[in-house]
């Protein structure tokens, strides 16, 4: 149980916990986006498909646009909410 004290005191863990939750949030959003477009638009009969840049619309929105959206969200999340901490000794950060 030697970790118990530092667990509560170390302010870096609070940051780490929050960032892990951001990761979980992003992956849930990613899944919903991916699933909704793929099976929402792709569930139709192929003869009714519409196309964007030559790709079936379901694929374009789910995989191509979805990937771009995720990349942007990841960049924004990291730049805005991720905090730089020192990994070396405890208490080196303020």
């Amino acid at each position, binding site marked *: 149980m030697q970790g118990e004290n530092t667990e509560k005191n170390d302010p870096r863990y609070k940051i780490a916990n929050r*960032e892990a939750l951001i990761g979980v949030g992003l992956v849930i959003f990613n899944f919903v986006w991916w699933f909704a477009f*793929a*099976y929402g638009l792709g569930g139709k009969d192929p003869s009714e498909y519409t196309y964007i840049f030559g790709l079936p619309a379901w694929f374009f929105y789910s995989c191509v646009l979805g990937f771009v959206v995720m990349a942007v969200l990841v960049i924004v999340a990291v730049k805005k909410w991720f905090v730089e901490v020192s990994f070396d000794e405890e208490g080196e950060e303020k």
Partner: protein
Amino acid sequence: MNWQALVPLIGVILIIFGTGVWAGKYIKSSNTFMQDYFLGGRSLGGFVLAMTMTATYGSASSFIGGPGTAYTEGMGWVLLAMTQVSTGYFVLMVLGKKFAIVTRKYNALTMVDFLKERYRSKWVVLISAFSIIIFLFSAMAAQWIGGARLIESLIGIPYITALFIFAILVLIYVIIGGFRAVALTDSIQGTIMFVGTLILLIATIVAGGGISNIMSDLSAENPNLITPYGAEGTLTPAFVSSFWILVGVGVVALPQITVRAMSYKDSRSMHRAIIIGTIVVGVIMLNMHLIGVFARPILPDIKVGDKVMPLIALEVLPNWLAGIVLAAPMAAIMSTVDSLLLLVSSSIVKDVYLNYVEPNASHQRVKRLSIGVTAILGVIVFVMALNPPDLIIWLNLFAFGGLEAAFIWPIVMGLYWQKGNKYGAIASMITGVGLYILSDSFFPQPFGLHSVVMPVVVSFFAYLLVSLATQEKVIGEKA
């Protein structure tokens, strides 16, 4: 023999090889051999970290067939492959800073070190080391076979000679270079994959007469090819969604990934790696699998899935460029083999030998042993790849799902839930692996899901309930 393609291919491999040798020099001059050999001295920067992660994700999923399956199944398989984009950010965010801080505090060099310090249980360590050795060894043997087949078909030499060439290449630079060599060569390989798949995709689209043209050819052949459901309509939403666990979030539990998540220099490297990694993984996955689908109207009669990439490259690109681009899958296989070899040898030397056989072994002895074990493992794999036993092929199919089922909760809950204890961890590992093997053998795809899903869910509850039930016992042991 296709010399025009072969010369650039050999050139690329030589460059990779040279990097390994160069990185090896670095190690000789340092005095913290274990840290350096197995972890690159925790000095990886953002770009190298992102690339070595990417190369490892790529190969973690190569067992799902990649472009060859996309060729057969159509756009539905590209959809499935895109679940891997999540690994680019999820792994580093979830293990994240907590893992980096804790492993430094514990002075952990491998995933098993972390589990050992966290749970302080001999059984946790032995079960983990054993799972890693068995599962990863099998995965490695399968990769050697793949690598040798690629050389065989490319140069047109017998399988055994090809295997021999492959083995020598891999062994030399793993032995002299260690983790830093692997991480550095991964960066070169990741870059080749990134640029190479992009060039090949564009060339394939041009050869197919544009995307619209390719799509109408595909739907004329079989309209299912452009739906999310696969050529025969067998890819159900539940099954495809399961891959979010198998090749997406579950990847946090693979030892070859976690070891990278403790190897970076500082939090800035990690931030950069998240961004670069997400983009690079996404681009490579999208390109590679689209190439597979788009190749179908251009070369309609390919029977063996693994040949799709080489054949389409030779068809749509000039020979010399095809050689460079084909260095990418070759490189991917080599990088997997390297990191798996290191992991298995670190499990044997560090987790078993240093923990339980000879804790006071001298520095010199550990060094000789690490290199010796790595070399011996290489030779054993070579012998097995000569005439692969069925058991290896069978185990390889389970390798990644099995490791995920075993380790996901002991790692994630161990990091974020104070009350988790060794009984919970042992219960979770045994239920995870046991249920996975049972499920895969007797009722594959329960409720239409991939067989990895249920063990992951059940082992979560095993961890939770057993940890809670043994709270008193653990407190009693401490007192």
